[in-house]
């Protein structure tokens, strides 16, 4: 294909040709092109269909503000919808498809919406879909959801990686146009640590798009020279392809660097994009300005562009939009477009609003063919295939609004400029600050950098300002052309017209916030970068107020759209969060263990043996073998907190509801920890290893929370206590060895005597295993004779293997968390399901543990009214009346015949397991007045699972209620 509209000049590498496709057609372009510039060079003006009316649309801008030219870029899993063709850097093999059309871009059946437009005016949804109410969920919402959106997702996993990172600088400069470059030169020469970021792949901003000179050379050449100097400064970091998305607190800015988007695919190991968090001491917004259109009838045809963009395509990319051009402007900047196009040999006609000239209509269904103008001399229609429109320039104040600063109206340039109360440490320079001339940009860039350097305590170098044009833009406001009955478009992305704004006004949606929501002005991917101020100005005219009186919406981050993948970074799939591996993990993996995530821990849930096809077979075997002989379980995940100090005992008295100061050295005690509100927080055993030394265990889930709580108590509630804390969870590999043969097994490994006399129930000791330092605790969660044995973690793998080998003669098993759960329910021990944050010690049947003889956290409030009612929830055991029936956790208790409503709710099942000893399901639960209901029969109904079982209320201690086995 020939590049029929490729003209001379531009910063493209004509020596190399890149091939790409759009809607299946093959085209050629050059390095330096964007997808939009290459399509224009190939004579393609039609690039998309509008959101609501499916109007044929072309590109209107040359930057990230583009509302129309949205495409689906790439194919397969890398397909990305709603990509702005104006910022897509061309690469060889690029493929893009138009979107929001069927069957083709040129013939879109959905364009029927355009014919029906009188029915689809602003507020159409709110008026139409209100009635009948029942239709909303079944009919209206599904239809709207199908019709909504532009591009479509691939629905495949994103194959690329995204990094996150952190950068630090003295001065962040946002935008590398003349103001940004001058600021960077000033600060960089002073030795400041500078980051200069620009969303474009070619730094230089408007200097690349203009023909005027800077210091006697072209603006683009001056930019290259400035960039070369900046590259030579070691304290300056240049970040092209990097968009500053938002101003956060404390001088932190988020930035998205597109590392690989200009390549067919990221290089191996490299991310597609990086989301940076930039910590800056000072920042300068030099993000330039965005041109705004003038609204007139049929101003949305492909071939009608912003005037500055029309000349940018000609000057930077050597791409003409058409052969015969016109410019409709209300300011002198528009005249530059006419002059530059004429210099390129393109005949260009000027329609100057300041002279009473205006465009009143256009023709050309799929692309501009003619323009009708009205002048003081009458109306005239002439052939034209490229029309540049300039209604003035809006400084890109967006980032200054991120802390809710409102921009202020500058009458001289008829635009909003940054307000004075922007993010601390951020100033503005160049066009972003309303300094629209090149000299103004260079001068303000230098001045703001000098001010920042003064703040930073650095000496600014002597000012060396290049010579550049300083022409005023000489603007006379012109917002829209009132002639004609057709539609004049304000926000092309959302199909908002002047009429829509008038309708909003008629219906009294005159606040800018209401205007936005009623008409959808300024929504979606472009966030109103070209349409917002225009819409506001139209509303101001309608209400007879000034623009400042009408107000403005402010901007939120992100400045431009961000892929969800970039926000997720590496935290997805298997790497969503780090894992914590137990000391026996390697051994358990070799055994084919099934793992369960508990917080970040991977714990063996059960360890299937050959021939076992159902998890219950494995779990039942593990439980039965443990109770019959001996079982081993990795309990390293339980939190371990080393507590030392002369006040350690008093500290434990404070944090535990029961007494610990009386615990003898060499003994363990079960402890119950309450929150300040009297509810149970956590439980576990604490061992006293020395006069002033304890080790506390917590539940796995609450290990971090308990440590944080203890630190709060130590630092804030009891700062005078002599107590020191540190976590040792990771330092020790700890195994439970439980069952009638536990002692026999362990005695084979332990160097010391661990007979009942030497180490009675609830005893603990520092021991050795073949000379290796270790700890032993005689505690039991399973209800069996049980010990927990701990060695430094590096020996954990060897110890599990040693325990298994030593246990062979006893048919020892290693059991997982499921078997652990079965045994604890059989014993009536509470765990996570019962420690639900809403339950008191009294609810759990542990009310007597809350000592009244000392002060402890939660003690007072655990006694408050409502917490001690006789008919409150109590922990009970539950079994099905018919042993063949299963129980479901979450089932609620109801009296026979009672309706299934909340008022009749008596409580619920918290945990349920199959007890292999009893041969049927058993459960724990909370039941109102449960302690006086033993023997009663109730219904356990689960409306979600649609189950109902008749149950009998029993003691929660299903197995060995007297505890004879654990003392054995």
């Amino acid at each position, binding site marked *: 294909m020939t590049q029929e509209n490729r003209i001379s000049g531009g910063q493209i590498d004509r020596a190399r040709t890149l091939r790409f496709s759009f809607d299946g057609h093959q085209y050629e372009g050059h390095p330096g092109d964007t997808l939009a510039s290459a399509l224009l060079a190939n004579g393609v003006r039609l690039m998309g269909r509008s959101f609501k009316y499916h109007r044929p649309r072309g590109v209107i801008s040359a930057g990230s503000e583009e509302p129309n030219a949205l495409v689906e870029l790439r194919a397969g899993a890398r397909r990305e919808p709603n990509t702005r063709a104006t910022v897509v850097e061309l690469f060889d093999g690029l493929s893009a498809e138009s979107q929001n059309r069927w069957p083709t871009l040129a013939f879109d059946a959905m364009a029927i919406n355009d014919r029906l437009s009188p029915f689809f005016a602003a507020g159409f949804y709110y008026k139409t879909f209100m009635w009948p109410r029942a239709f909303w969920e079944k009919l209206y919402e599904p239809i709207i959801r199908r019709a909504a959106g532009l591009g479509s997702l691939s629905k495949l996993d994103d194959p690329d990686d995204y990094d996150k990172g952190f950068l630090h600088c003295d001065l962040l400069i946002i935008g590398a146009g003349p103001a940004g470059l001058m600021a960077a030169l000033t600060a960089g020469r002073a030795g400041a640590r500078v980051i200069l970021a620009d969303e474009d792949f070619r730094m230089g901003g408007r200097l690349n798009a203009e023909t005027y000179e800077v210091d006697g050379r072209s603006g683009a050449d001056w930019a290259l020279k400035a960039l070369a100097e900046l590259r030579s400064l070691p304290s300056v970091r240049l970040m092209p392809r990097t968009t500053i998305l938002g101003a956060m607190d404390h001088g932190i800015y988020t930035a998205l660097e597109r590392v690989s988007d200009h390549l067919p695919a990221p290089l191996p190991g490299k991310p597609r994009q990086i989301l940076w968090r930039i910590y800056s001491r000072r920042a300068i917004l030099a993000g330039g300005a965005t041109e705004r259109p003038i609204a007139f009838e049929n101003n949305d045809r492909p071939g009608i562009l912003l005037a500055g963009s029309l000349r940018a395509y000609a000057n930077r990319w050597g791409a003409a939009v058409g052969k015969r051009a016109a410019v409709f402007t209300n300011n002198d900047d528009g005249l530059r477009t006419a002059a530059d196009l004429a210099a390129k040999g393109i005949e260009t006609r000027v329609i100057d609003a300041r002279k009473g000239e205006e465009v009143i209509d256009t023709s050309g269904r799929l692309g501009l063919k003619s323009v009708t103008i009205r002048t003081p001399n009458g109306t005239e229609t002439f052939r034209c295939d490229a029309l540049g429109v300039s209604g003035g320039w809006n400084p890109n104040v967006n980032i200054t609004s991120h802390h809710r600063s409102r921009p202020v109206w500058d009458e001289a340039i008829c635009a909003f400029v940054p307000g004075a109360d922007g993010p601390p440490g951020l100033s503005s320079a160049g066009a972003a600050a309303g300094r629209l001339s090149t000299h103004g940009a260079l001068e303000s860039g230098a001045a703001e950098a000098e001010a920042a350097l003064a703040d930073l305590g650095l000496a600014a170098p002597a000012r060396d300002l290049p010579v550049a044009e300083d022409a005023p833009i000489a603007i006379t406001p012109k917002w829209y052309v009132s002639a004609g009955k057709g539609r004049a478009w304000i926000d092309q992305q959302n199909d908002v017209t002047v009429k829509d704004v008038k309708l909003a006004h008629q219906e009294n949606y005159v606040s800018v916030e209401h205007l936005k929501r009623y008409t959808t002005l300024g929504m979606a991917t472009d966030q109103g970068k070209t349409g917002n101020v225009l819409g506001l100005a139209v509303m101001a005219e309608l209400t007879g107020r000034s623009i400042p009186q009408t107000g403005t919406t402010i901007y939120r981050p992100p400045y431009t759209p961000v892929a969800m993948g970039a926000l997720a970074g590496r935290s997805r799939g298997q790497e969503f969060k780090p*894992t*914590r591996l137990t000391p026996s993990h390697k051994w358990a993996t070799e055994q084919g263990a099934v793992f369960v995530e508990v917080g970040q821990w991977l714990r063996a849930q059960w360890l299937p043996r050959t021939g076992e096809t159902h998890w219950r077979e494995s779990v039942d075997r593990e439980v039965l073998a443990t109770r019959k002989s001996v079982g081993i379980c990795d309990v390293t995940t339980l939190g371990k907190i080393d507590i030392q100090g002369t006040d350690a005992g008093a500290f434990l008295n404070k944090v535990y509801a029961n007494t610990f100061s009386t615990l003898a050295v060499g003994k363990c005690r079960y402890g119950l920890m309450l929150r300040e509100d009297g509810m149970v927080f956590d439980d576990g055993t604490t061992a006293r290893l020395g006069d002033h030394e304890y080790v506390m265990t917590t539940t796995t889930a609450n290990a971090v929370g308990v440590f944080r709580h203890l630190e709060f108590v130590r630092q804030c509630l009891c700062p005078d206590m002599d107590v020191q804390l540190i976590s040792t969870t990771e330092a020790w590999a700890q195994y439970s060895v439980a069952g009638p043969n536990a002692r026999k097994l362990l005695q084979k490994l332990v160097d010391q005597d661990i007979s009942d006399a030497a180490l009675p129930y609830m005893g603990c000791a520092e021991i*050795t295993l073949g000379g290796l330092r270790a700890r032993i605790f005689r505690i039991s969660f399973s209800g069996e004779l049980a010990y927990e044995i701990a060695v430094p973690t590096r020996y954990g*793998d060897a110890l599990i293997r040693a325990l298994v080998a030593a246990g062979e003669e006893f048919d020892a098993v290693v059991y997982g968390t499921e078997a652990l759960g079965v045994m604890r329910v059989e014993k009536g021990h509470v765990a996570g399901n019962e420690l639900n944050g809403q339950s008191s010690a009294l609810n759990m049947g542990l009310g007597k543990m809350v000592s009244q003889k000392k002060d402890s956290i939660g003690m007072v409030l655990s006694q408050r009214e409502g917490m001690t009612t006789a008919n409150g929830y109590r922990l009970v055991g539950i079994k099905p009346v018919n042993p063949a029936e299963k129980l479901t956790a979450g089932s609620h208790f109801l009296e026979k015949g009672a309706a299934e409503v909340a008022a009749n709710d008596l409580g619920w099942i918290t945990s349920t397991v199959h007890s292999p000893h009893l041969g049927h399901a058993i459960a724990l639960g909370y039941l109102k007045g449960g302690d006086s209901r033993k023997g009663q029969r109730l219904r356990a109904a689960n409306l979600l699972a649609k189950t109902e079982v008749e149950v009998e209320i029993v003691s929660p201690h299903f197995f060995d209620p007297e505890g004879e086995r654990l003392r054995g």
Partner: protein
Amino acid sequence: MADLMLAPLTPLGHALPEQRNIGPVTLTEVIDSALGSLTARAGRLAELAERAAAAGLPLPAPGQSAEAAPYGAFWLAPESWMVEAPFASHEDIRAHLVAIFGDAASITEQTDAWVRFDVTGADLPRLFERLSNVDLARAPDHAATRTVIDHIGCYLVKRGPTRISLFGPRSSAPSLWHALETAARAAF
């Protein structure tokens, strides 16, 4: 004594420590260092400092680390340090420290609570800017700080411009190693 010989595993789960070269950096799993936490008992800081000085054990200021023989240390919290010593001679580091400090300090063995990865090579800030919010380029030598890397709480000790020691929770050693490898491949 039971006839038992338990063989240790490294935090990454092997008999020997791992080492990997990626671009200009080398990642090394370090296992020859013993760790113990040292915290002054209430009102005993002066005594602790005297005893430390007598033993040649440095007590660096907040945000710093110090190396001496046989002991090095980095600051953890007010009146609290992590003491480092050669594993071969100080496997039972707590006993060594108790001998120095008596009851003036609370001392807890921390050797196996942590995995230590040393990262050496040129241009380490380029790697760590993808991992941590620490301003490594501006951090002085011997800086020590707590930081978060890929959701994992770590201590970072800058031994010098080309050497960093990273201490992460031992149970997450493979996750932390993976984060370092991935970032190094992306950065270089």
